[in-house]
């Protein structure tokens, strides 16, 4: 027996299945490209990127101005 909510639910499920297949398929394509071009390059690139972002976050963090000692 069908209810009024069957249509939208079926549509949602169909969209989700298509999206899941698409994501897996895209991942397979990306992994193939990475495998072809050599993983070392990509791993080095990822490490360099993470390192660069870490340096940016750590050294460019806004800090409170230091108080200058006053001679009394």
């Amino acid at each position, binding site marked *: 027996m069908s209810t009024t909510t069957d249509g939208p639910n079926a*549509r*949602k*499920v169909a*969209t*989700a299945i298509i*999206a899941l297949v*698409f994501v897996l*398929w*895209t991942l*397979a*394509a*990306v992994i*193939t*490209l*990475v*495998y*072809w*071009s*050599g993983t070392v390059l990509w791993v080095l690139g990822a490490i360099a990127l993470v390192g660069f972002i870490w340096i940016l976050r750590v050294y460019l963090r806004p800090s409170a101005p230091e108080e200058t000692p006053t001679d009394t």
Partner: protein
Amino acid sequence: MDTTFTRLDGAQRRLSVYWLTIAFFAVVIAFGDGFWVTSVQGAVGAIERNDPPFDRWLRDSTLMLPLFFLAVLAAIVLGRRWFGGSRSRLLKFGATALLMVLFTSALAITEVAASSAYDYRLQSRDLASVHAFHQTIADTAPGATTTTGRCVGICAEKQLTLHSHMKALRIASVVLLLSNIVLVLWVMALRSDRIWRSNQVPARAPSEAAVGRGVTGAVLS
């Protein structure tokens, strides 16, 4: 889970593009470019990848299909955002076509480059093993250059292989760009009226507005 469904559905509605048109563009370009990727691989590729060319073309092109889909989608969404408001039809569709050619060509060139890199790795390994197999005098450092800095022996062979791949990539880039221009214009000619949905008010809105006006009028009178 339900929010994910709702978000997916919402994103699909928000993009308001003709998915069939995007799929059509993606299939034509992916399989067209796949032909050149297979050709380059057949011309300068490694001997290990010796599957029948038709199978290779079908498999690799199908595998890359979602990436081409995303490239076409990005071109259409950006084209609509940047040039959608233009009155000139030529500018609107010409610029979108140009974006599509650029994005898909960049992707196809990346694919050729990655495939060539894989071929070069296999060929370098083969060269090293053949060199080791046929050499009677032990080479302490195969692939090393001489004292004058010239690359000889296996190093020269690897360099020649690399040069042939680079040359193939340069030629393939030009060919891919030209063939993508032809393919995009061809599909554009077939489906230019169904690229993106207009941002006009949906058809049911006027009736809702009329009901609203009627209610307001009834309340005020």
